[in-house]
């Protein structure tokens, strides 16, 4: 592991703490108001003015959902290779590492939630938009295999633009690989709870994001297979209000419940307890 990564903070407006002494403000994309960063951070990364959900990096996501100091990471060192010698891919990986301060687009491990032991993965939108390449697929597969062996539930937090183009068919077939591992976990009677966050689309939507026993989503999260621009172009018409938003996807029958960020940990804890954990 790079020593550096222990000290450096993630490189985005909300996570960068280098200027902490100065009270910083950022403009909320939704309401346009100036909001203090510390207030947002204390408010589960939700805008205190308008309720807009800011993206949350994977590591913080796990902190939000699990018991303090319970998370033990697995397979942190797996790093992507440019299997197809795809142009400009190495540069993109480097930039993604710099931006996310992570080695890849998903973090996996074990933790406890309300004292119950779980396997957990959280995808990171700062790493090439949470796209799924061989390493993301491998890490999630290994997690499901471990959970199957140990009879543990899996909690998954998804955020992804889909399969990673730069790895071609290798990335597409991660959908098959992970789905097969989820099936084995499922066949042994284990619980898989998935929390869909904004956005969960493409190949991730068409595989493990849609395979939970219980499917939760954050308010307003975009959930869907095809990109909205592709659909607009195909149909040559504007998309209806709320299309592919979690609330609409729930109405269509594909989400069990929409759970607000401050309530997610307790909600998942309750579900675990109801499964005797």
């Amino acid at each position, binding site marked *: 592991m790079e020593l550096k990564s222990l000290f450096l903070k993630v490189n985005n407006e909300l996570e960068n703490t280098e200027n902490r002494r100065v009270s910083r403000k950022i403009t909320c994309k939704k309401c346009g108001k100036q909001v203090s960063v510390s207030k947002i951070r204390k408010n589960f990364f939700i805008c205190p003015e308008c309720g807009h959900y800011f993206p949350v990096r994977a590591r913080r996501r796990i902190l939000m959902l699990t018991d303090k100091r319970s998370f033990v990471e697995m397979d942190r060192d797996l790093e992507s290779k440019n*299997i*197809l010698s*795809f*142009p*400009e891919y190495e540069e993109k990986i480097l930039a993604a590492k710099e931006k996310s301060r992570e080695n890849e687009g998903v973090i996996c491990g074990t933790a406890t939630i309300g004292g119950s032991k779980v396997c957990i993965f959280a995808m990171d939108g700062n790493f090439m938009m949470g796209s799924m*390449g*061989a*390493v993301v*697929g*491998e890490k999630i*597969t290994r997690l499901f295999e471990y959970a199957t062996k140990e009879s543990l539930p899996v909690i998954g937090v998804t955020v992804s633009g889909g*399969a*990673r*183009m730069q*790895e*071609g*068919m*290798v*990335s*597409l*077939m*991660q*959908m*098959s*690989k992970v*789905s*097969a*591992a*989820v*099936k*084995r976990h*499922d*066949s042994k009677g284990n619980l898989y709870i998935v929390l869909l966050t904004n956005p969960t689309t*493409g*190949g991730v*939507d*068409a*595989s*493990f*994001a*849609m*395979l939970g026993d219980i499917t939760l989503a954050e308010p307003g999260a975009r*959930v*869907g*297979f*095809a*990109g909205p621009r*592709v*659909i607009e172009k*195909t*149909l040559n018409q504007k*998309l*209806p209000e709320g*299309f*592919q938003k979690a609330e*609409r996807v729930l109405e*269509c*029958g*594909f989400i069990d419940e929409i759970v607000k960020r401050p309530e997610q940990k307790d909600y998942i804890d309750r579900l675990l307890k109801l499964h005797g954990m």
Partner: protein
Amino acid sequence: MNDYEIVKNARSEKRLTSVDYIKLLVKDFAEFHGDRLFGDDRAIVAGIGKIGDIPVTVIGIEKGKDTNDRILHNFGSAMPEGYRKALRLMKQAEKFDRPVVCFVDTAGAYPGIDAEERGQGRAIADCLFEMSNLKTPVLSLVIGEGGSGGALALCHGDEIWMEEDAYFSVVSPESCANILWKNVEKADVAAKALCLTAPKLYELGLIDRIFSADKKKLKNEIVNCLQNLMELSKEELVDRRYEKFRKVGY
């Protein structure tokens, strides 16, 4: 042909479609319709018949022939009910110990409001999920276009074969060029970089065989393959399939 020409050729209206392959290879074909949940998606042509002496379930993504036929088959872009029909018939095949042969030829699953709202993502995911544990042999043949998740949904087989001039890709070269370089003109660069041709995918170990549309030879190859797979116990078959996908990328 360069790689982009292969993609364009795979889209050509002159190529054999799934229905042609069914006519060439399958005796006594009986087509079955509907997913029993919503409707019948004509983009998927499915039923039972015999290849050689083996009763099989056949599932093909069909693009159609002339304009009217193409509209009827939605240009080979399946809706969720198409994937659910496919899965229903695969489960039926498992019940009656029939192998499944899939013919794959699609630019992709249909990107529409209705398709999304009826759960396109879930329908594809369910195919992958259930096929991974289907206790009967599955052979998938990419005969033309292997367009992303919509094609992959029917490729969770014991073996994946590709016609020599077919392609299989995570994304169309045009979309790839547009997303990465904001320039559709660079689709040829994208096509090359994506490693989407049959020889390249064979070299990468992602497909098992390259075939030519020679009727007699192909029929023999399919019969041999199915016979070998039918000799495996159900457990061996499913374990072997798991390992096949397990090693992708690692």
